């Protein structure tokens, strides 16, 4: 082994390391960056991009009356299934309604359904999960079994089953999503509580004689907020996808109300699929973009709130 090399060949990393080392020696003991959470979130490029897209789509839907020159509901028999033009940016559908306007107004309902159901189910899940996780006992046992029952159904089957029983309406859909969605966040909140419960400060609070509700909601809940926020984001994305899927089947929001899924419903017709791409492609892309942005935000939140990950 006489011909062994004397120096290790440099790699791509070496340059990076050199820079770090030199910076460190040149600025010994400078102030550190503040705001760990915000800093981490902002330094995540994808999360930032996601947030910008999310904000743009939300704002455009919110200000739909200002941005759209046409009414999303009124048919126009003189402009049936027209391709995109200056007059109709995304073209018109088979009854001559302006698709751009429908996408904007549809966004209002779809985002309402997604975000609303996510927030409601989080509310229910957290209220039950935090309390029963901390207190335990029969309440916990019952809540756990009920959530197990809900979760042993494939979600979409349960949703469709409930649609069949309750009937189709916007409100029903939100109720159904909330009913089928609370279990996941409940379990997560409960699990967090179970682990926080063992920490010393909780023991201390208990010895001060604070009531269980106060300890659970006021002192322990804030420590579980990170994962809860991540969960809300991710379930928003999931609900928007589900609404789209259900409405595409014609079983979600009643067809008279424009939603992203309802617009896509037209593409069940092979002729529309083949000849009128503008009726379904832009709205499909919008859904995808929106859900993608929400997922990026959720990922960023996860990284920013997860203490176990560094760098």
């Amino acid at each position, binding site marked *: 082994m006489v011909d062994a090399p004397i120096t*290790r060949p440099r790699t791509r990393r070496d340059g990076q390391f050199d820079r770090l080392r030199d910076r460190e020696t040149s600025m010994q003991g400078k102030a550190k960056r503040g705001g760990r959470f915000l800093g981490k979130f902002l330094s995540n490029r994808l999360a930032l991009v996601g947030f910008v897209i999310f904000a743009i789509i939300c704002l455009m839907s919110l200000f739909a009356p200002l941005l759209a020159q046409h009414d999303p509901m009124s048919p126009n028999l003189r402009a049936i299934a027209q391709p995109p033009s200056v007059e109709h940016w995304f073209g018109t559908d088979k009854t001559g309604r302006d698709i751009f306007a429908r996408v904007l107004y549809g966004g209002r309902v779809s985002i309402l359904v997604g975000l609303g159901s996510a927030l409601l189910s989080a509310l229910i899940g957290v209220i039950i999960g935090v309390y029963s996780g901390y207190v335990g006992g029969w309440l916990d046992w019952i809540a756990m079994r009920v959530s197990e029952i809900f979760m042993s159904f494939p979600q979409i089957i349960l949703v469709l089953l409930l649609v069949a029983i309750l009937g189709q309406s916007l409100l029903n859909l939100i109720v159904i999503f909330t009913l089928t969605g609370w279990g996941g966040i409940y379990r997560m909140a409960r699990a967090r509580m179970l682990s926080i419960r063992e920490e010393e400060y909780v023991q201390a609070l208990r010895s001060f004689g604070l009531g269980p509700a106060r300890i659970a909601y006021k002192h322990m809940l804030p420590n579980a907020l990170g994962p809860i926020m991540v969960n809300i984001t991710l379930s928003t994305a999931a609900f928007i996808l589900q609404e789209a899927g259900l409405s595409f089947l014609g079983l979600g929001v009643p067809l008279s109300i424009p939603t992203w899924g309802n617009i896509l419903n037209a593409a069940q017709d092979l002729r529309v699929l083949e000849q009128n791409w503008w009726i379904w492609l832009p709205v499909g892309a919008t859904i995808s973009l929106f859900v993608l942005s929400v997922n990026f935000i959720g990922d960023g939140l996860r990284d920013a709130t997860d203490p176990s990950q*560094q760098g």
Partner: protein
Amino acid sequence: MEHDVALTVKGLKTYFYNNNRCNRAIDGVSFEIRQGKTLCIVGESGCGKSVTAASIMQLLPTLSRIEEGEITYHGPDGPVRIDALDRGGAQMRSIRGKEIAMIFQDPMTALNPVYSIGFQIKEMLMYHTGLGRRARHDKAIDLLASMGIPLPERRVNDYPHLYSGGMRQRAMIAIAMSCNPRILIADEPTTALDVTIQAQIFELMETLKRDNGTAIMLITHDMGVVAELADDVAVMYMGNIVEAGPVGTVMRNPVHPYTRALLDSIPVLGRGKDQEIKAIPGQTPDPYDRPKGCQFADRCMHRIDKCDEMPPETQVSDDHRVMCWRYQEFASNGR
């Protein structure tokens, strides 16, 4: 008495680059491991003992590198510069495990839970010996037997979770010793174990050293272990070896304030019940914000202005060296 040197480390610097910061975990460390002898590396946790071991084995994580220095393994085919080898290259791999083997601190996590102990021993034999399947199996049983594991024919097929902590560490040693390495690096092998089992493990290591002539680098934070087992000792503090020499010399005549503080912090047999045990005041500094000069200065009772400058390594005697500006005062002082 001349002994062959098994491994030389000279001016080793290993830095970590996690979180976009530079952590100078080891900042210029030199020592030798002599053939058939035990070198103890001792120091508080976080001082760089494990990183030293990982540097020798080239088992550093991705975001770290050896900056400078030489690690030379004096093998049967002449010296090899380990630091110059590719981390995952064939040459390094043929040294790792075969020539230099290592056992780790926590036997509970160091073994793979999904493979049997036998499999994990035979794996090593497969890569470094020409033994056939049958022979490997027999050898694994022999090894377990020589580590004092009862019913080795049966236990060889057991999974780690069926072994107790002490037995797992024996199995770990069996793996490490399976190819008769010239050097065994043991990183706090008993920290996670009971005191009684600790004694058994050390006895086993002593036997192996005696019978096979293996050089041992034993990492510990316990001065009592050093007194018991070491031939040579190197005291580490924040990435430097602050004092090193034969164990008798260093224990009898410690000249670095840190060594003296360490010795004061353990009970010594035979000094009676009313001996004074003093904890070292203060805490180790933030590795990202190290003092400029002597790393120990902030906690040192004998600090002077000069300590803001890094003291050089100075020979106290032929084989005893120290990094301290005022060592002469303590040397003459005696104990």
